[in-house]
């Protein structure tokens, strides 16, 4: 990892350029697709990483996502919806990977009360002063995010870290706008609760 922190909203490609590249890629122009890849690969990689909490798996699933995107690009009718469509494909790969995991690979502790998967996390209740002094805050935050229930984790990552609009998130996760709004709010409250001791420090 680098020290470059997520500020995904800042490096967006302008819609006209993106539409032109998508059109080119639909016609089989691999160079145009490479430009799309370079614009979005980092964001997809980090979205997937926050979902699966493994760099190796995130890299693998990012590659799968872009291969599928290139192959299915012809089915994208509205080029303006490319971004949520791309994230939706990545999300599908994440869930597919979850399903492929045998039950023995998932401990009982890794399931929340609804039976949904929660990534195993280390104890984040370490002494905030120690964490602050030893520069472990990045790890603490990673563990906080990884410890969120899956339902909240994805909307939190998409809104707080990827900077997507609520409507785009609703398109990605396939829920209604009010439901997404509520989930994001609850996720933010949950995260604040888990990091509040570090805020005081």
């Amino acid at each position: 990892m680098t020290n470059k922190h997520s500020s995904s909203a800042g490096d967006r490609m302008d819609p006209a350029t993106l539409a032109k590249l998508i059109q080119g890629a639909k016609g089989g122009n691999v160079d145009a697709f490479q430009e799309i890849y370079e614009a979005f690969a980092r964001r997809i990689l980090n979205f997937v990483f926050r979902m699966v909490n493994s760099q190796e798996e995130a890299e693998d699933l990012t590659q799968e996502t872009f291969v599928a995107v290139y192959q299915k690009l012809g089915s994208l009718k509205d080029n303006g919806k490319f971004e949520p469509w791309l994230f939706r494909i990545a999300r599908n790969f994440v869930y597919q990977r979850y399903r492929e995991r045998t039950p023995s690979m998932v401990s009982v502790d890794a399931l929340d009360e609804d039976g949904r998967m929660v990534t195993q996390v280390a104890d984040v209740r370490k002494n905030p002063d120690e964490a602050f002094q030893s520069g472990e805050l990045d790890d603490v935050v990673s563990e906080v995010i990884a410890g969120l229930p899956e339902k909240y984790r994805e909307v939190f990552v998409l809104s707080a870290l990827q900077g997507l609009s609520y409507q785009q998130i609703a398109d990605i996760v396939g829920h209604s706008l009010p439901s997404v709004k509520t989930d994001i709010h609850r996720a933010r409250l949950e995260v604040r609760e888990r990091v509040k001791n570090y805020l005081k420090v």
Partner: protein
Amino acid sequence: MDCARCAEDLTAYLDGELSAARAEQVQSHLAACASCADEVRSLREAAAFVASHTPDLEVRPGAWNLVRARIAAPSSSPSFFSFLAPGRWRWAMATLAIAAAIALGFMQYHQLQRRNLDDYISQYMRYRQAHEPAQPVFSDFRARFTNGSSGAANPFAKLKATAMGNPFRMEDQ
């Protein structure tokens, strides 16, 4: 706007997802309510803390080459039938396939029914042949009169001779 309503909207307010009118209502409430103002401050601090402690992974150099190697192979030599794959063609083909499967199933079912009936008839015929006399019943009845075994003459013998002619033909009258 009351505190409960304001609390529900705080995250959307921070994310700039409220309508202008609603955002203004929240803002007015925050200016007047210290508790909600505290709430929004702590949410904002938590968001800033998380954003500043979530380092991004960088894409590995050469990752694109792996993607390119995988997409180049199938796209460089599209199949002759590849025009069938995209969009509505796929749906049309799927519908056609389902209709064909239903028609085939229907035909198979009728053929099976017919075969069952044929089997039943042939079984029945075999049963008849196995359990009934070789000569038809009528022959036995006829023999009784023609052979004279019972001593009685065939009462229909004369009638039979005339009955062979067509009663409706004028020349026979």
